[in-house]
């Protein structure tokens, strides 16, 4: 009996230990996951099992009461990706916009804020530390706070932000447990209140994605390693090929008159080094800076954060970022007399979309378009009086400096004649599962420190490091009634300079690229400059000289990230733009439609879906000519036949498109890689990362593809076709044939020996990537037409970048305006609203932005007598 009791006691102990272990397993976080006991709690709404989506489509009426103020609100959720809000009080309009944004996009809001403010690792763990350090270095939160401090608290902008924020927080506060996003339940994250500062922080994230660059770091190596003749030939400061500038001298000569800084710059020379700085150490510092940018900067990779989480956890949390690959917009005088506007910004195409569609109606406002979650109002769209769209103007607003330092002055830099201590900001990054880490940001008079190698300090000055209120620009557009009011609002837009297309109901149309363009007095801004003061910004290009075109005699204007100005513009504004092939195609199309008397909504819609690659006009004839003289295999002969019968359209059934795509990449590589190797450009110096060093986007962006077009057509015997590594003399025909044979070998192995089966759609897809980087929640891939040079752009072989929003409007009849964005309103994957607009977008269809059948209030300002 005693033994039995002993045995029972042992069993009792084992059971107790077992129960403790089970409870520990349930309530101990595993890696970055929430404790399983919380995550898998089967209680109603508590764990993942009880999650419920927000309401689906339909309209509802309600009364909003805030601080004894009362307002009537109508909300309509429509299946075209739009939330429509009408209220008899404008404060209630923005309150409701904030509330509904949080209701449908809360996880997106929280992740964007965390990313912008350098807090991602507090949500998803140590793998995001590098990203957090990057955004802390950009001083996002500090700048956002400074912007808020400068905001007039009695302004309409502040009021709109205030009520939007109240709305977001009202939802967070009242949100039932069942509505907490599943990703937060898995991660154990509880949403925290929103603030106005958070909106400005997200604004900083967006402006960085639109204007940030580290090109001057890598280009310093080009200047250092290559002779001047090579720089002049490979990297001319103005594109050598056919170009249609956005603001040509012929359309606006006034901005070309007068002095500028261009004549004082040395765009082909290495800048002098500050005293005491050796070239090897500078190179190491630059390499370190490049690693800092490339490793954590969203603008240079396919996603903002794309690292597999460390440790046990089996899933990769990626917050797909806002990468700006390019965009199109154009304005035209329609054949019927109204002003037409079309816009398709090429940002990341994610689910949920980076956009959220809104129609906002209140006294004095009826605006429809798309908005970035976290920002009140509409960013791109139209109201009854004006329409606007944007493409990235891509001027250089980031300048890099190497500071003069000395062991005798530790912690200081020499600037304008005196030694000045770096301003030190102590940051604390809370890392989930690892506690706090300390991070130091240092700042000089001419920028933030991005690299410090053996006291060789490189800083970056960016116009976004200073307070800027671009939200005010969009809120102003939303209610603007004419060009004067539009331009007044545009004066708030400073950093991420855009080519803002404009059209109004009076028939005016134009494009404006206003903002802060830094001006330096001397040196080479394409590279790292000396930091001792003489090369600092001395001001900005005056507004009267900033590029714009209004009501041009040509009847249209267009921008597609191409070079903005003609040669002879007096100021330096940058040098690295898109190739211009999309712009060439747009200008060609617009000219044709104008001649045909067919500038209309339907022809603009057809243009947005154009999949003809203009570069084929340039490269295909000489390629076919070269191939006549080349010895090719039966596979090659079949491929030549396909190419010779091809119209240059990248349709999914085109095998010639596949051949051309690979051939062009080989041709580019075969021409330039030997020279870059010859001049010792290494991966650490940016080889394969920057477009001007054969980066992944070099076939549509930057200088090399334009050099190649120029030489192929005009200088086929250029010595730059030679191979400097082997000493082999070559010409364009030789390299084109070499690339063609490589293409045949590669595609035969990849797709089989029959070229007619090498259809473009087999290799080229569109993917709506999960915004959160959760591949299982992505939509697609879908076989896709187009390439990186077509107006209907689809960058890369698996395109996660493309027309993120399409808008076509004739301001003679704005109620007929159409638009579409991929994805839908909701971030909740269970909802049809997660993905209900994708089919239309893929098929090139459009929704009428203000459809018939809505409650009367949504036609306010369009139909006389209707009230909001």
């Amino acid at each position, binding site marked *: *009996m005693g033994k*039995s*009791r002993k045995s*029972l*006691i042992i*069993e*009792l102990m084992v*059971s*107790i230990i*077992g*129960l403790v272990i*089970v*409870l520990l*397993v*349930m*309530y101990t976080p595993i890696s970055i*996951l929430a404790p*399983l*006991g919380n*995550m*898998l*709690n*089967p*209680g*109603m709404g*508590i764990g*993942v*099992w*009880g*999650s*419920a*989506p927000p309401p689906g489509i339909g309209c509802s009426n309600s009364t909003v009461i805030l601080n004894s103020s009362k307002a009537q609100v109508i909300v309509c959720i429509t299946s075209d990706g739009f939330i429509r809000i009408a209220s008899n009080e404008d404060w209630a309009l923005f309150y409701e916009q904030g509330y509904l944004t949080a209701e449908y996009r809360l996880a997106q809001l929280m992740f964007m804020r965390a990313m912008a403010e350098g807090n991602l690792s507090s949500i998803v763990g140590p793998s995001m530390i590098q990203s957090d350090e990057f955004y802390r270095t950009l001083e996002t939160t500090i700048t956002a706070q400074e912007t808020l401090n400068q905001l007039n608290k009695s302004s309409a902008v502040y009021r709109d932000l205030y009520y939007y924020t109240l709305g977001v927080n009202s939802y967070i506060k009242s949100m039932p447990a069942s509505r907490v996003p*599943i*990703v937060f*339940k*898995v991660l154990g994250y509880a949403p925290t209140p929103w603030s106005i500062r958070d909106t400005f922080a997200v604004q900083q994230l967006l402006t960085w994605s639109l204007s940030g660059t580290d090109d001057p770091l890598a280009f310093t190596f080009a200047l250092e390693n290559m002779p001047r003749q090579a720089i002049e030939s490979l990297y001319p400061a103005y594109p050598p090929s056919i170009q249609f500038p956005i603001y040509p001298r012929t359309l606006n000569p006034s901005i070309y008159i007068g002095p500028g800084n261009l004549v004082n710059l040395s765009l082909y020379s290495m800048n002098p080094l500050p005293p005491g700085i050796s070239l090897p150490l500078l190179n190491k510092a630059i390499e370190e800076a490049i690693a800092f940018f490339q490793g954590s900067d969203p603008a240079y990779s396919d996603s903002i954060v794309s690292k597999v989480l460390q440790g046990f*956890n*089996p*899933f*990769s949390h990626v917050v797909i970022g806002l990468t700006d690959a390019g965009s199109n917009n154009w304005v035209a005088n329609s054949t019927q007399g109204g002003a037409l506007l079309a816009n398709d910004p090429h940002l990341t195409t994610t689910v949920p979309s980076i956009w959220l569609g809104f129609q906002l109606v209140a006294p004095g406002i009826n605006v429809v378009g798309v908005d970035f979650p976290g920002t009140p109002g509409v960013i791109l769209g139209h109201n009854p009086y004006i329409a606007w769209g944007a493409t990235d103007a891509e001027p250089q607003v980031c300048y890099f400096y190497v500071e003069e330092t000395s062991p005798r002055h530790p912690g200081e830099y020499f600037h304008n004649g005196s030694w000045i201590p770096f301003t030190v900001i102590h940051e604390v990054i809370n890392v989930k599962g690892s506690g706090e880490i300390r991070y130091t940001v240092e700042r000089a008079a001419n920028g933030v420190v991005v690299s410090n190698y053996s006291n060789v300090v490189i800083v970056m000055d960016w116009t976004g490091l200073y307070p800027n209120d671009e939200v005010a620009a969009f809120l102003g557009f939303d209610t603007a009634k004419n060009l004067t009011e539009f331009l007044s609002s545009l004066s708030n837009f400073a950093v991420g300079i855009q080519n803002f297309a404009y059209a109004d109901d009076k028939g005016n149309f134009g494009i404006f690229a206003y903002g802060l363009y830094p001006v330096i007095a001397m040196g080479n801004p394409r590279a790292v400059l000396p930091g001792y003061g003489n090369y600092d910004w001395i001001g900005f290009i005056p507004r009267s000289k900033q590029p714009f075109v209004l009501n041009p005699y040509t009847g249209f204007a267009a921008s597609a990230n191409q070079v903005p100005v003609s040669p002879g513009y007096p100021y330096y504004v940058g040098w690295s733009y898109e190739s211009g092939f999309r712009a060439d195609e747009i200008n060609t199309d617009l000219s044709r439609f104008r001649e045909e008397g067919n500038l209309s909504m339907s022809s603009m819609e057809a243009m947005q879906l154009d999949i003809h690659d203009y570069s084929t006009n340039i490269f295909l004839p000489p390629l076919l000519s070269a191939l006549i003289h080349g010895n090719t295999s039966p596979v090659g002969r079949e491929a030549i036949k396909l190419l010779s019968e091809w119209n240059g359209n990248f349709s999914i059934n085109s095998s010639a498109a596949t051949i051309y795509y690979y051939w062009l990449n080989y041709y580019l590589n075969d021409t330039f890689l030997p020279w870059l190797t010859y001049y010792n450009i290494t991966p650490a110096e940016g080889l394969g990362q920057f477009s001007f060093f054969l980066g992944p986007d070099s076939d549509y962006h930057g200088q090399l593809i334009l050099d190649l077009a120029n030489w192929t057509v005009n200088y086929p015997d250029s010595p730059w076709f030679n191979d400097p590594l082997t000493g082999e003399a070559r010409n364009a025909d030789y390299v084109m044939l070499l690339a063609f044979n490589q293409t045949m070998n590669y595609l035969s192995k990849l797709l089989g020996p029959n070229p007619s089966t090498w259809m473009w759609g087999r290799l080229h897809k569109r993917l709506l990537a999960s915004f959160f980087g*959760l591949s*299982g*929640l992505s939509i697609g891939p879908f076989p896709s037409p187009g390439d990186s040079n077509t107006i209907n752009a689809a960058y890369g072989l698996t395109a996660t970048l493309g027309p993120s929003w399409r808008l076509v409007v004739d301001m003679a009849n704005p109620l007929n305006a159409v638009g579409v964005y991929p994805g839908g309103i909701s971030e909740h*994957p*269970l909802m049809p609203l997660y993905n209900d607009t994708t089919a239309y977008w893929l098929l090139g269809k459009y929704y009428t932005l203000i459809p018939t059948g809505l409650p009367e209030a949504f036609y306010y300002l369009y139909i006389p007598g209707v009230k909001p």
Partner: protein
Amino acid sequence: MRNTLLAFIINAILSLALSLLGYWELLFAPAAILGFLLHLRPRTSLWVTGSSGALGVLISILALPYALQNGEITALIMGLPGGAAAPLLITLLLALLNSGIGGALGAIIARLAAS
């Protein structure tokens, strides 16, 4: 046999109630009381209260309108294969162990008290 069935039914109902209220970490408590009161053999108690506890949890999950879809999304987020099955199995396994060990504990204490 009658006690076994009774324990199963009562524990399933109590587990369902605790699960619906969100207190599934306490599944061991009613199981322990039942194991103690009904004088089951510890091993029997473990399996009877364990399986009935898991059943109660399963019913409470299936009573939720989007449960399986939510499970599938959870699996996608966590990178688990098999759709909703993987998180569901983990949930049921935890319920089985929690409730079952509680039942066994009650039964052992009952035997100790009687000895």
